[in-house]
């Protein structure tokens, strides 16, 4: 069959391989969700919080991998994500709490939490690796479950092409929940974002808005980790919002532009790694986002 010898077109590959479709669906959901939060993150100077929470996710992965070794009931990818989610949200709240103490300050709080979570994550993964080796040697592990763990590369840089159908639904569900929350509390969030103390003085429930935003961030980060990994995810929480902010000064337009930049970069990144197979998708997405920013900054930013 001569046609089999021809290289497949992009479209043929996309329609034939479910993992590309999963990557696109989950990727678009996450890009849009992160893009909306990014507008608040950037303008509230919370970029570093995103950084702290993502690195906490690394600790969460370590904890999940370690725990499931002892509690076989936890050996399910969704449960693993639930543990990571718990870690992220807990960290977000912890940062929020420590940061509210005048003597410490948010940046130091993040600095502490970030490195500790990373360190604990690495220690737990090391311990797990060692125990898996010993258990395997002692014949305690069943052959079927060889203690599969994502590689450091996957944790750090994501593996969007291995996203499962279930994970697509989780990503879409979490994004929908976050977008709904933002839409419902939109006016309050704006007031909180421009002037937190003022909002409190005017009788708004700013404490709840503050922690709500942190929880939304934590959840979004957990699902986005599968795509971009711990290191690159803050790109999706910073670049779309800051790029969009260069194009408009109206909040709704900024949010729409932010979503457009994130979605476009995801599509370009995915196409690029479909075309050139050695490229990991996550880093390409980040580079595309950075190019959008650079062009916007050169053309719009230096007014």
């Amino acid at each position: 069959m001569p046609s089999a010898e021809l290289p497949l077109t992009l479209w043929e590959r996309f329609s034939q391989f479910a993992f590309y479709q999963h990557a696109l669906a989950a990727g678009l959901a996450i890009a849009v969700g992160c893009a909306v939060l990014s507008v608040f993150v950037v303008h509230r100077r919370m970029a570093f919080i995103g950084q702290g929470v993502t690195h906490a996710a690394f600790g969460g992965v370590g904890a999940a991998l370690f725990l499931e070794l002892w509690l076989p009931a936890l050996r399910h990818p969704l449960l693993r994500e639930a543990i990571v989610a718990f870690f992220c949200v807990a960290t977000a709240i912890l940062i929020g709490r420590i940061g509210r103490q005048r003597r410490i300050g948010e940046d130091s709080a993040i600095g502490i939490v970030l490195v500790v979570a990373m360190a604990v994550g690495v220690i737990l993964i090391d311990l797990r690796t060692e125990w898996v080796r010993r258990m395997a040697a002692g014949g305690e592990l069943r052959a079927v479950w060889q203690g599969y763990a994502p590689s450091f590369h996957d944790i750090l840089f994501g593996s969007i092409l291995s996203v499962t159908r279930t994970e697509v639904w989780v990503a879409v569900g979490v994004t929908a929940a976050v977008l709904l929350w933002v839409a419902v509390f939109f006016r309050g969030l704006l007031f909180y974002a421009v002037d937190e103390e003022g909002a409190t003085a005017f009788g708004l429930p700013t404490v709840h808005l503050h922690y709500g935003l942190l929880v939304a961030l934590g959840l979004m980060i957990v699902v986005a980790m599968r795509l971009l990994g711990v290191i690159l995810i803050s790109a999706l929480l910073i670049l779309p919002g800051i790029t969009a902010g260069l194009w408009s000064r109206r909040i709704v337009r900024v949010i729409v532009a932010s979503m457009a930049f994130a979605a476009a970069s995801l599509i370009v990144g995915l196409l690029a790694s479909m075309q050139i197979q050695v490229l990991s998708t996550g880093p390409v997405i980040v580079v595309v986002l950075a190019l959008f920013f650079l062009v916007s900054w050169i053309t719009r930013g230096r007014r």
Partner: protein
Amino acid sequence: MHDADQAERLADRCRPQSGIDHGPHRDAIIDIQGMSYRYPDGTLALDRIHLSVARASTLAVIGPNGGGKTTLLKILLGLLDGYRGTVRIAGLTPCEARRRGDVATWVPQRANFHWDFPVRLREVVAMGLLGRNGLFRSVGKDQQAFLERVLDVLEIRKIADRPIGDLSGGQQQRALIARALVPRPRVLLLDEPGAGLDASGIERLQSVLSDVKREFGITLVSVSHDLRRVVADAQRVACLNQRLHFHDVPESLTRGVLDRLYSCSLDGILPAACHHDDPQEA
């Protein structure tokens, strides 16, 4: 989410306080009796403050930096709790007043606002209604009409659709005043309203504030460390440096009071005047 529930819990956190309505102060919109406040680290910030402010009057609180002016405002706003003594605004505790969103509103220092956030002036002003209306009720017709009138009085209607970050310091200041006016509060609390404005900006601000006063019959309390910027049009002046050193008509501020307050020479800032010493301390 359960906003009513949240509101309930915040309201719960208002400390129950026995209502003491002192006879002579019953007409006061703000009534502070023997109020002291310590910072969390134990430093005394405010020491046995007595102050009552008549309805629809203007009070200027002056005093050196670190003298407790902003702390006093934050207590009145219900942002700081844990004071001792009695504080009432329109008969409510500050915490209860804050929950209502339309008793005492705040014009904060401009420095604490994220001016580069992509919002328009009109949106910033409308935020003032969120506390009163709650997060989910939209702006009513009457409220919208009142908002437009506030924009007119403050002379910012023409620039209402411009991004807040593009405006001048004086325009931003007036936007914050408008935000505080739209829920129709009884009391307007201004923190260093003149800060960062040049002489003409201050003049404009003062004329706008007297327009506000005439139009809306509101009680104004402003706090400043710069004597020249507030005293001129205030009916009453309180000098605050941990204790309240004076509270009378501005013309009667004495050199002695000011020297004690600032511990420095004030030549040329204010005319020397007649009265001396503090009736509150007697």
